[in-house]
């Protein structure tokens, strides 16, 4: 891509930045998400404000029920916030109707899910270009080739999902997320169903797409090893951002998670 990768990696936005500058691709401003009401109300996000840097791989970590998935869903326009604002490329998406949200997801966001979520009736190639096909946009063939070759999917393009291994399916899902040059890719436990070798492949690719293509990625994960590929790790607990870490390593993340557990149990 155009943006020099190295320069991008150096950018580290403030932990709770509320303004939107050129280096912020998406931003949550004082976001609260409450499920249910009355006594049964659960506050999944509690006044969260966070900015995601352009050309960065941001990992979101936290114990189960910490609100990490909810945060991602709200950021991605898949879920609505109870209060607060979500900005994508500086545009407030909190009040958009379903039609506009759909267009936003289609044209500006990419998704990688834990369970691959490919369309079983389509070939790998058709799955990759599906968002562009739905939008009726022409596929940038050079870009498509670059992604496919990077992911080593060239000889799998005509295969159906059930003919692919889990790792291959997830690579197809990654290609699909990137093919439309989205502003931001959301990856929800992308390695949750994969063995260590396949996981490493996927994470290396995500890393590479940030470094080489300047892609912005937000990844929710349980795995400290996966988080170590990120530029920055956000730690959520009880619907709040409790910490963040730059240039993480597996050991440091593991250690930090451990303190969570201690805090929880004390």
């Amino acid at each position: 891509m155009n943006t020099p990768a190295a320069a991008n990696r150096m950018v580290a936005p403030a932990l709770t930045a509320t303004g939107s500058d050129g280096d912020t691709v998406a931003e949550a401003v004082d976001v609260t998400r409450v499920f249910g009401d009355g006594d049964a109300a659960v506050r999944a996000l509690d006044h969260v404000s966070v900015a995601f840097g352009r050309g960065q791989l941001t990992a979101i970590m936290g114990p189960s029920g910490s609100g990490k998935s909810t945060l991602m869903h709200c950021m991605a326009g898949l879920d609505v916030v109870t209060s607060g604002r979500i900005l994508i490329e500086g545009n407030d998406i909190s009040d958009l109707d379903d039609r506009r949200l759909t267009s936003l997801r289609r044209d500006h966001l990419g998704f990688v899910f834990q369970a691959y979520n490919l369309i079983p009736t389509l070939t790998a190639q058709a799955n990759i270009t599906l968002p562009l096909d739905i939008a009726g946009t022409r596929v940038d063939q050079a870009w498509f080739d670059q992604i496919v070759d990077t992911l080593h999917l060239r000889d799998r393009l005509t295969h159906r999902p059930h003919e692919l291994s889990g790792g291959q399916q997830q690579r197809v899902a990654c290609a699909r997320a990137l093919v439309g040059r989205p502003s931001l890719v959301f990856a929800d436990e992308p390695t949750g169903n994969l063995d260590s070798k396949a996981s490493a492949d996927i994470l290396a690719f995500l890393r590479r797409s940030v470094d080489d293509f300047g892609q912005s990625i937000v990844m929710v994960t349980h795995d400290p090893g996966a988080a170590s590929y990120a530029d920055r790790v956000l730690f959520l607990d009880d619907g709040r951002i409790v910490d963040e870490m730059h240039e993480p390593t597996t050991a440091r993340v593991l250690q930090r998670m451990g303190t969570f557990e201690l805090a929880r149990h004390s």
Partner: protein
Amino acid sequence: MWRVTLRGLQGHALRFLLTASAVMLGVSFVAGTFVLRDSIDGSLSNLFSQAFKGTDVSVRGAAVGDALTEGIVIDPTGASSTTRPGVPLSLERKLATVPGVARVVPNIQGTAIIAGKDGLAVRSGGAPGLGFAYDPSDPAFTLIKGSAPTGPSQVLVESSTLAKAGLQVGDRTIAVIGNQTRPVTITGEVSFGSLFGATAVLLDDATARRAFAPDGTVASISLTAAPGTSQETLRAAVAGVLPASAEAVTGEQLAQDGEASLQSGLGFFTTFMLVFAGVALFVGSFIIVNTFSMVVAQRTRELALLRAIGASRRQVMTVVLAEAAVVGAVGSLLGVGFGLLIAAGAEKLVSTLLGVELGAGLPLGVPTVLWSVAVGTLVTVAAAVLPALRAARTPPVAAMSLDAGAAPAGLRRRGVIGGVALVVGIVMLAVGVTRIDAQWGLAGLGSGLCVLGVLIAAPLAARPVVRAVSWPFELITHTVAKLARRNALRVPRRTATTASALMIGLALISGTAVLASSAKASITDIVSVELTSDFVLSGGASPVPETVAPRAAALPGVQSASALSGVDVHAGSFSSIATAITATGLADNFVLSTVSGRLDSLGGHTVLVDASTAAARSWHVGDTLDATVGTLTRQRLTVGGIYADSAGFNSHVIVDRSLYLAAAPDTSRRDIGVYVRADPGADLAAVRAGLVGLVQPYLVVSVQDGQEFAAAQGASIDVLINLLYVLLLFSVVVAVLGIVNTLALSVFERTREIGLLRAIGLRRRQLASMITIEAVATAVFGAVLGTVLGLGLGVALQHGLASRGLGVLAVPWSLVVTLLVSSALVGVVAAALPSIRAVRLGVLEAIDSV
């Protein structure tokens, strides 16, 4: 296990409701048929107990030869028939002297029609206008208003007839009584109960005798027994004094006979309805199979878990079958309710089509409910057996695997079996119908095999047909249509089963349509080729009065006017209704080709025979037959000529009119029509005007030229065909439910995929389009198979019937196009509900669902 069954039903309430409605539609036909039959039975026993009130013994002409039942003969006295000679009125006095006879009432009866307020004849459907002598002591009729008629210009009119006429007691109108038209005054109103649509006019005794028994004979004489004398005792006593030409029967016997003959006519209608009930249930069973297969597939993990924790195969199977039983029973009960509606509709249909009013309401008997529920439940359970077996075979280990969907089995074996069945079927059908004497057993078996073959091989046809159907959509909305096509072809077997329901319905409709339009075209063709009459005078269901033909012949510009009628002829084992006409009438109006002898030899006891009868009986020109003609026994008939079989002239023997006049008693003569040939060069418009003026007083007689006559024949087919379409529409409704069901299930199955598509940017409208295109593709797939199958079978059957009057093949292309287009609409309608469901799915919930 019951708890699992109930939970299963609760969890999939909607889909089971849809399945139950399919069962409901099928069962409603069964229930409706039973209700209608009970209603007919009730009305009939009512009618006959009314008609024979006071008749303990009836004296009638002894039967000559075998009685022939033709169509629906409405005749409440059960006495008139061309095969019986009249009973002389002179017997009246003799019968009165028989010990045990309390009362003697000759049944003086004939045709009588009055003009209503609008000046047109009062009649409905095919039921006749009856005229009787009024006898105040006859308990069958009750005078409820006015006074008894005296003299030839006074009549009593039965209540429902009076209502139809829009007239009141005291009004004056025109009546056609026997052969005479005269102005009459209505002096009173009598009630009779249900006449099954017939009209009734009563005259004073002397007038009735003059009009209906001019030759001194009547169809029958009713006797009432003195108190203490049983019907049988009286019958025996009366039989002793009767001449050989007459016989005595008890009133009970008469009522039974009459009821039986009417029932055989109306029984056709109920049989007809049962056939459609069968079709609807058959079509419904496809839906049941599909629903249970899909539910079982979706619940593989749940069922496997049951197996893993120790449930036996039998128990798993029981769970599925028990669900089917509950669904079947619920659907059947709903069907009984719906059946009452259908029966009400059918009664309406019977009354408008056949002019038969059923007065017994809608009796819902316990047997009706039991039978309907039993049939519906059994069909449902039987249809669920295959899916239940599949469920029972679920390996316990399937509970552990994430991917529950089994790999689709190959279709090759199915294709081979279906293909072979289809080819063998086509060959059998082709051989069956191309034989000179069509082999209907072979043809029927062949047709069955064809249907079966298509049903089995249908999944193979799914790919090309669905591809072709979705092609135009792919031009408009490429990706959405492609997704839809792929979805439709994901499990070709399922798509084919779904489409099969529609296929069967449309095969029946299009096959029927081919036969119907061929029949219409053939009639028109036959009439235009074989009928050379300039005009035909006919009275519909009523006979043309005997005086019409001679008076028409006397009109200026008329070359000949010939009455045509029918008479029973028996010769040895041969029995047929012969056409009676004069040689001139035959030559002037009908084109028959001579095989041997001379057709103009018709006259006196010289008759003509068609070629196939002559061949079958080894009759040759010059042979003499010992035959019974109408009431004349031991007649020596000479074969004067043999004519080629004719579809238009649909009778095996032609006798001279003079023989008919001698053989048929006055009371039973019925001229079916009068065929008029104009002088060469005559002004046809003037001749027509003359004929119209002549028949006007007869109320019921109309004048038609050849084309109009042909069109009128075709119109009667139209009525029948429309009835068929309405009934077949039910199977289409069942088919729509099937598509709804399958789509709803597959939307459910694909929840995660739908969630993903929405997440990556598929709009709601695009999602709805995708489901709609899938439905349209499925529906059109079924319609194409069904239409092709129906057209094929229709054309084959037409070929087989070519020698029986269906010589012209007419394919109703406009109907075919309509069917295909409306099947696409069927798809759109069927997709509505599943689309709404899919669109309402939350993106997140959908993605997170397992």
